[in-house]
């Protein structure tokens, strides 16, 4: 399973939950981009592609795609995508594409907190955000004395 944001032929995020070789990854991304970008706006959000199903949704200029296996539920996946977008929105405060481009490691952290090894870790938005905030907080505590020290050292 992979999740990526594709904007007009540019990849913004990708995450693979199955071991795949680099060459295969590139090929799949390229192919998937072509297929998804060729879809017209009123078509349905599900695609049968190779032996997988691709669930995609467009938010503004970004496509969120998720490849799932045959027996997985498509609507749940659509809901997952939506929830991830909601999480991003809450975290960044009305998220836009630029947030994701420039803070893509944050977007990855949120994704890791939400999905773990390809399965939903926590369905509650609140607890995901809480976990992220905690980590950020600890990190800043950890970081701030050091930067002060560094500044002093520099001075």
């Amino acid at each position, binding site marked *: 399973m992979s999740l990526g944001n594709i*904007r*007009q032929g*540019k*990849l913004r*995020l*990708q*995450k*693979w939950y199955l*071991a*795949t*070789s680099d060459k295969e990854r*590139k090929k799949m*991304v390229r192919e998937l981009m072509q297929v998804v970008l060729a879809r*017209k706006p009123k*078509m*349905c*959000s*599900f*695609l*049968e*592609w*190779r032996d997988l199903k691709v669930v995609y949704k467009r938010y503004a*200029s970004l496509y969120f795609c998720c490849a799932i296996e045959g027996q997985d*539920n*498509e*609507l*749940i996946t*659509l*809901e997952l995508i*939506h929830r991830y977008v909601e999480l991003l929105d809450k975290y960044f405060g009305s998220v836009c*594409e*630029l947030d994701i*481009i*420039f803070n*893509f*490691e944050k977007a*990855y*952290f949120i994704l*890791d907190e939400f999905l*773990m*090894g390809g*399965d*939903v*870790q*926590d*369905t*509650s938005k609140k*607890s995901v955000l809480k*976990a992220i905030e*905690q*980590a950020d907080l*600890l*990190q*800043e505590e*950890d*970081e*701030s004395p*050091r*930067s*002060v020290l560094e500044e002093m050292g520099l001075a």
Partner: protein
Amino acid sequence: MSDIVEKTLTALPGLFLQNQPGGGPAAAKASFSSRLGSLVRGITALTSKHEEEKLIQQELSSLKATVSAPTTTLKMMKECMVRLIYCEMLGYDASFGYIHAIKLAQQGNLLEKRVGYLAVSLFLHESHELLLLLVNTVVKDLQSTNLVEVCMALTVVSQIFPREMIPAVLPLIEDKLQHSKEIIRRKAVLALYKFHLIAPNQVQHIHIKFRKALCDRDVGVMAASLHIYLRMIKENSSGYKDLTGSFVTILKQVVGGKLPVDFNYHILLQVLQKYILLLYLTMILTISAIFIFLSLAILFECVHTVYSIYPKSELLEKAAKCIGKFVLSPKINLKYLGLKALTYVIQQDPTLALQHQMTIIECLDHPDPIIKRETLELLYRITNAQNVTVIVQKMLEYLHQSKEEYVIVNLVGKIADVLVLNTVDTYAPDNAWFIQTMNAVFSVGGDVMHPDIPNNFLRLLAEGFDDETEDQQLRLYAVQSYLTLLDMENVIYPQRFLQVMSWVLGEYSYLLDKETPAEVIAKLYRLLMNDSVSSETKTWLIAAVTKLTPQAHSSDTVERLIHEFTISLDTCMRQHAFELKHLHENVELMKSLLPVDRSCEDLAVDASLSFLDGFVAEGLSQGAAPYKPHHQRQEEKLSQEKVLNFEPYGLSFSSSGFTGRQSPAGISLGSDISGNSAETGLKETNSLKLEGIKKLWGKEGYLPKKESKTGDESGALPIPQESIMENVDQAITKKDQSQVLTQSKEEKEKQLLASSLFVGLGSESTVNLLGKADTVSHKFRRKSKVKEAKSGETTSTHNMTCSSFSSLSNVAYEDDYYLNTLHDRGDKELKTFSLNSELLDSESLTELPLVEKFSNCSLSTPSLFADNSMEIFHPPKSTAASVAKESSLASSFLEETTEYIHSNAMEICNNETISVSSYKIWKDDCLLMVWSVTNKSGLELKSANLEIFPAENFKVTEQPGCCLPVTEAESTRSFQYSVQIEKPFTEEILSGFISYHMMDTHSAQLEFSVNLSLLDFIRPLKISSEDFGKLWLSFANDVKQNVKMSESQAALPSALKTLQQKLRLHIIEIIGNEGLLACQLLPSIPCLLHCRVYADVLALWFRSSCSTLPDYLLYQCQKVMEGS
């Protein structure tokens, strides 16, 4: 596109300005984002792919310099890592940074560690070698007191972790299950789930802890544990029946609103699918929607569940309503799901398709190809003899439009399935259509299609249908159509198609009256000379020419061809050409060798090549070395190489070769394998039936065929197709009638299409309404090969009869089953035809009781079966006689079995009439399961019969004496089954059922299950220390583990004794503080164990020829050693 880029560019400066103000950490952030920012901005500003490549290469080389410079601080490294991730995402190779990512995760502070871990999880995959370097870091972080560090470690573990290193972190993660923070518990559960996926036997011992997680007070932890249960229940559904209660409680809490609403119902429902929980399902089906997608997703799963569990009319009705909502929804996503749901249920309930026929027709012309495809899938499921033309036409239309290879393969497979692969019948209405459609399929599907398709098509042609003249016509038509196709200039056909053509032309050209074989040969010759034809196809072609040559009296073309190809560079072609040349010189031999129309006869093939014995004996007498199979030669080579060995036993052994290795207990690996290979060889030659080239060799050398064709076929299989379609939906009919009056012309066309599509499903009146009473007779019906099957000559035809028989008897069986429960007659009839041919395997074919039941049932539902030729299925009389003989055998057998060790009899199930108890007998060569059925009632039981459900891991064979026709009042009977293991496992459940008839023909059945453990299949292996040493070296799979011993068995002898008693290992020798043990897994997989004691630790070292066995045995040992 361009305006979006523009917007992005204009927004950029603003973003940086936002980040600028604010000192301290924010300043650091700004510098970081500006570096990444300049990279991103640079890339966005570029216009061509080429420039982008240049820029990135530049960036990468500067990054490379930075990361490898010793002065780079961790902070800078972190920032480089982020840029590396970005470059890698754009598709450029950044592999030089992988090792630095690991270093960063190891050395950095929290933020740097976080980025390091992220980079590692994005860069590396599960089997990457660098991952081993990460293990130490993960272990350290798992032991950390900092929550965030533990979280990060758990996250990375659950994403990528090398399988072999799981034992290193497993105890740490197990401890985390008791952690006070729920987020840690949750992540630990998911990490263990991941381990369960990649190495299930390593986490076996903590299953009990998963149960604790299921009852966790935090919802998230509980939800996480559901993932594990979903997986485990899918693997083994009966093992977790006791948990149903807990699942229901959870579900109740969810439905009752006690848990947060966004709880994931979906997984729970999948779990519930395994059980019958009608009440709660009803409840869920009526849930009102809060989250629109989520609740609809759940609804969809519910519908799926309703149809996959025991059908209940009330629920079915509700589910049908839901599907209706989906299908009629204007939202395209829901429509797609509605179609998908229809596809699931269509075979059970075709009325639903009738209700939605207009929607389906609309979807068929939908602009979205995905919807179209789903609709075709749906239509494929409802294909029958009457609508096949229209549906196949629609499929072909779609096929011509699509370009994607995967779609083509899939769709071609389906069309071919409808036409050719169908075991009972092909739906094709007439010869011309059939051949033309297949031509279209072959030319479109070409070389990507599944190889079974051409093979099956050829088999169909060769074996033919009921009617001999009809067959001839079909073949003739095929030959003619291929000849016209070949006449066309400048058309390139796919190789597979050419192969099919060449086979058909080779076999059936004799049917032509106009064209002589010589002309056909000339055409084939032209193809042969064509460069675009692959060499594989050329061999097909030359085989066809060879077949035709004896029929063509004299042909220059053949001469030319021989001349041309005896000097060919392709050795295969050259050989064929030489064969043809020599045969051509002796026309009489050639005629007897390649007779006309004999393709479906079976040849007796002497797989042991006994006719070569004389030659071999002569060779041996002249001093030639005896032949050794490849594996034997290799093993000998290996053992010779190992003259210099460093093995720890100090045992001296000769390198005398293979025979010395055979142990008294009989690990005759070599001979076993060679026996098997001879057998498989035999099987292969049996199944190779339809290859283009005939088998020429037999016992007497070249094989002149005996005339043994069974010309008359004793009665065809009656499959009353028409009776399926009696499902009348009056309401629909009426509605249609009223609609017809007011329809516009376009509507009428659609209606017409609908009627032709749904013709098989609706009533006759629906069809007549639109003036399309299509009564196509079934010309194509596979001829039954009952006669041949009886004599048991051929395997393939045997299977064919079995499958059709089992489908019929299955009908009878299911009918019986549903008789009391279903009120709706239409429903019932259709359900009974959802053929599930797996239910009865071919062995049951000759079982008397089943056949009796079958005929009983056929009486009760006369409308379903035309009663002609039922007697075909009665077993041959000899079976009855042999049954009687076997029953006397069985009683003596029982006495004999008591010599072996056996377990105590245990009652496994009972009811008012019978009680079943079972015990295991551990025989030397197999596990014998004995079920004794006691008839408690005063009545006589007829045809009590025991069936074992097929299991994945073992093979169950019936011992003689299992199907006595009658069990007298108050007596006991035993059924014996020998169980052989196929794949090692820890514990499996063997289940089955007893069915019996009482005097008053009332039949009943009783299910039971028995636990089998790996230990039931372990036997001591008595070998000498010397043999042990030799075997030890030859085995590749080993597992080592230290086990703590309890006080009572601290000494080696007592520990080994425990192993001997509990696991049936054989103690070979005890030398000081080391011990050698051996055992075998039936039938003959040896496993060796070397133990060494230090203080209270027992070091176990297993080696075996089977890769999984050591793992399982280790688990058992641990259990025994820790348990006692």
